[in-house]
């Protein structure tokens, strides 16, 4: 499969603060890739570097093989990539209809059917001035302009921020339908449930560093919560095994979060005479909290 986004040791420093630290990303064509992290984890800085809006301090990256830090490649990238920013900046003096007309004129591959469908679905009034739109409506308008562009890669920064549940489902449905047409989608979010629903690959960052990079199905199949009860009190150091991400001991009960190697961990617990061992699935939200907490 072709690689759409690739970065090598991508780093961004603001003075002494390292916003992004040696990020190695690889996003495959046709995937819906979720980019998760807390506020200030480095998501927006990474996206801005990918789009050439800020320069990396060190490291490199490419989109469709075009260098992200080269002025001359920037136009080529912009032709193939649509971006909906977190702040949804729009020309306030225009009306909804005017900005659609204005934006459309730049893009020969504009999807007129999708534009019409979204205008109706999002209930956007074409005559209304942008400055008079509510926050949710601004977001919907910004998404419409990004979705209808007819791009090969769609980068969305917190696309559903400020939307109600019905609109969120609409947005996710369009993401799915664009993906079915072959558009690669890279979106940052902290709405973990929506990510679990539509993404097939998940990247998690914490304090500028990648802490998880895996297909969604593999995460779900391999990560487990294991709980074991022992006849005697045990200690944390009895459980130094590969695959154990986290151990918490409460007297005779021990909880593990395992990223792989579950069978060996269960076997190990049996050898230590565990009376009952429960292996339970774990949600992406719990994994996220563990990944972020473990490093705090």
């Amino acid at each position, binding site marked *: 499969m072709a690689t759409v986004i690739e970065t090598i040791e991508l780093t961004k420093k603001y003075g002494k603060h390292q916003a992004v630290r040696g990020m190695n990303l690889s996003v495959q064509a*046709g*995937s*819906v890739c979720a980019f998760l992290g807390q506020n200030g984890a480095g998501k927006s800085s990474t996206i801005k570097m990918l789009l050439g809006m800020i320069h990396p301090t060190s490291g490199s990256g490419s989109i469709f093989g075009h260098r992200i830090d080269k002025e001359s490649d920037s136009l080529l990238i912009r032709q193939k990539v649509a971006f909906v920013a977190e702040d949804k900046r729009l020309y306030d003096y225009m009306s909804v209809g005017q900005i659609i007309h204005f934006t459309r004129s730049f893009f020969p591959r504009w999807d007129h059917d999708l534009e019409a469908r979204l205008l109706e679905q999002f209930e956007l009034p074409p005559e209304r001035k942008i400055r008079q739109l509510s926050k949710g409506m601004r977001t919907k308008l910004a998404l419409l302009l990004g979705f209808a562009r007819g791009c090969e890669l769609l980068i969305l920064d917190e696309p559903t921020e400020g939307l109600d549940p019905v609109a969120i*489902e609409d947005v*996710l*449905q369009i993401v*799915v*339908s664009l*993906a*079915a*047409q072959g558009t690669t989608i890279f979106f940052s979010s902290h709405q*973990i*449930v*929506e990510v*679990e*629903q*539509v*993404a*097939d690959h998940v990247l998690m960052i914490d304090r500028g560093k990648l802490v998880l990079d895996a297909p*969604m*199905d593999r995460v*779900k*199949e391999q990560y487990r919560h294991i709980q074991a009860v022992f006849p005697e009190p045990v200690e944390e150091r009895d459980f130094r095994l590969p695959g154990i991400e986290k151990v918490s001991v409460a007297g005779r009960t021990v909880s593990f979060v395992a990223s792989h190697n579950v069978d060996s961990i269960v076997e190990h617990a049996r050898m230590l005479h565990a009376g009952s061992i429960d292996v*339970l*699935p*774990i*949600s*992406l*939200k719990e994994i996220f909290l563990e990944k972020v907490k473990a490093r705090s």
Partner: protein
Amino acid sequence: MFRKPNPSSGVPIYVQLKEQVRHAIETGGLTAGDQLPGIRSLAETLVINPNTVIKVYRELEQEGVLEIRHGLGAFVISRRRSRSKAEEMRDAQHLVHEFVDTLKKQGLEEGEIRRLFEAEIAGEFQRR
């Protein structure tokens, strides 16, 4: 026909969807020759990743439940999920065990049972 999978259940979405397709076939909701929804339309209806739908259809094709006709879509092959060789052997072993047990209870010796089996097998397979 299909329900939205629960994304936060911890069970991968493709496993949940695969179970739903199997269940529909086992309960007669889908029968041999029926066409499954297209990849894009099912992905849109359930609001799940289209690659997930592709994965489900491909795996069910490999398991002999569906047939993918290129350009046409996915179709149900069999009413029941096809049984693996291992499952067939396990069931057969169980039958033989019960049968041998019955003969023993009727007072037959090990050698007699063996001779009956061998004769029957030889006869059965020569006739073919």
